């Protein structure tokens, strides 16, 4: 406990850094997965192919990805870009399937009704399909957020300071409190992201909050 109190400033700094680094992969993952999931949902032939390939991405160990990416993309090994791209890939891997499932969860009758009202397909997607897929999209995004916050700690291997630093630091110097502080702070940040997403979701999708009369 004394170690934690003595180093509280560093823990807080690393936490803020951790939050900052987590946001971009989550956002990018969501945006990139959207068209992928849409194609997988829309064209049954591509569904298996896309979702299997994207799903396989998740099975690549992060350390391997950190090593493969730089020569592939011409990036330095040490640096944020390497970690952010790797985390975005994992985010896409989870989110693409969620997006396809989310779009499939939209009631066909409602889509038909919307078409019969005179929505063009592009407009229907944004005004009807996308918002109604919202609850399942949100569920996927919450998994992505928690997973990203957790995976980011590995980035310390390639010199990106996050709460992961507390793990290597604690291990190398034999300070158990450092590791514990890292674990707790990571969990707190993950829960924070999860909570914020749930609240934003409820705010954006007020119809999911009402109690049905029938």
């Amino acid at each position, binding site marked *: 406990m004394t170690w934690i109190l003595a180093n509280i400033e560093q823990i807080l700094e690393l936490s803020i850094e951790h939050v900052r680094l987590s946001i971009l992969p989550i956002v990018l993952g969501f945006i990139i997965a959207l068209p992928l999931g849409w194609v997988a949902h829309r064209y049954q032939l591509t569904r298996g192919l896309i979702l299997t390939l994207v799903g396989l991405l998740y099975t690549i160990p992060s350390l391997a990805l950190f090593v493969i990416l730089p020569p592939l993309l011409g990036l330095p090994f040490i640096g944020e870009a390497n970690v952010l791209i790797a985390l975005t890939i994992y985010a896409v891997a989870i989110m693409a399937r969620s997006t396809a499932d989310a779009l499939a969860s939209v009631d066909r009758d409602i889509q038909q009704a919307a078409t019969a009202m005179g929505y063009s397909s592009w*407009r229907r997607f944004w005004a009807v399909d996308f918002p109604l897929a919202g609850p399942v999209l949100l569920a996927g995004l919450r998994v992505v957020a928690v997973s990203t916050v957790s995976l980011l700690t590995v980035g310390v291997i390639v010199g990106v300071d996050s709460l992961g630093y507390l793990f290597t630091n604690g291990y190398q110097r034999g300070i158990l409190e450092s590791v514990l502080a890292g674990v707790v702070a990571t969990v707190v940040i993950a829960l924070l992201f999860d909570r914020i997403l749930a609240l934003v979701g409820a705010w954006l999708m007020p*119809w999911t909050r009402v109690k049905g009369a029938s």
Partner: protein
Amino acid sequence: MIEFRSISKTFPGGTTAVDDFSLVIPSHRTTVFVGSSGCGKTTLLRMINRMVDASSGDLEIDGENVSTIDPVRLRRRIGYVMQNSGLLPHRTVIDNIATVPRLNGVPRKDAHERALQLMDTVGLDRSMAERYPSQLSGGQQQRVGVARGLAVDPNILLMDEPFGAVDPIVRAELQQELLRLQRELGKTVVFVTHDIDEAFLLGDQVVILEKGARIAQKGTPEEILANPASDFVASFVGADRGKRALSIREIDGARVLVDADGTVAGRLVEAGPS
């Protein structure tokens, strides 16, 4: 006027839903397509707003071939009411009713004003305007569906089993409301149902369909009941049994009508000028 001319529809996979169908649907009247499930009645209805395109034949609305009209624009001028209301669950009642005017670019304020008026028209309390569809009863949802169908004041209103999913009491109420609305508005209504009683109640013209949308008989309810064209029609409308097979019985000099179960249905009187 809507005219089907030798319309056929074969779906990919080879099922022929509609086989050489021809019919004239007069304006400002209610035409009901009635038949068992799978007879192609919904397919016929959806051809009118091009939710389904015919494989062959021509479909004209007031002399204009629908295949030459952009489907999205066509649909925005035809009202559509479906089973289970098909309301957008993420939009409030008022926004649901205002959907098509908003698509047509009517300012939000005007569209909402009109939506409130329509709520009065279909007998919905204005206090429900800000509710979501899930907060309404089935009957109320169906009223919102009708209001939405009427929102752009379309000439044509397509109704696909709109009262199929509500309980019998509410259904009877909604049917009466529709009759009242139709007396006031005089739309060209095309109504699909599998319920012959509903068809006879609402239809000026009733079209009884067999598999492949073959017309078993068409006419006014009176014509069909008086002269069923075939055994199929007779059995479909139940002319030979139950509440429709009334016989005269004399009791103390008065003539009463008795149905097939022996229940007294009414008294026979001379028809006065109506």
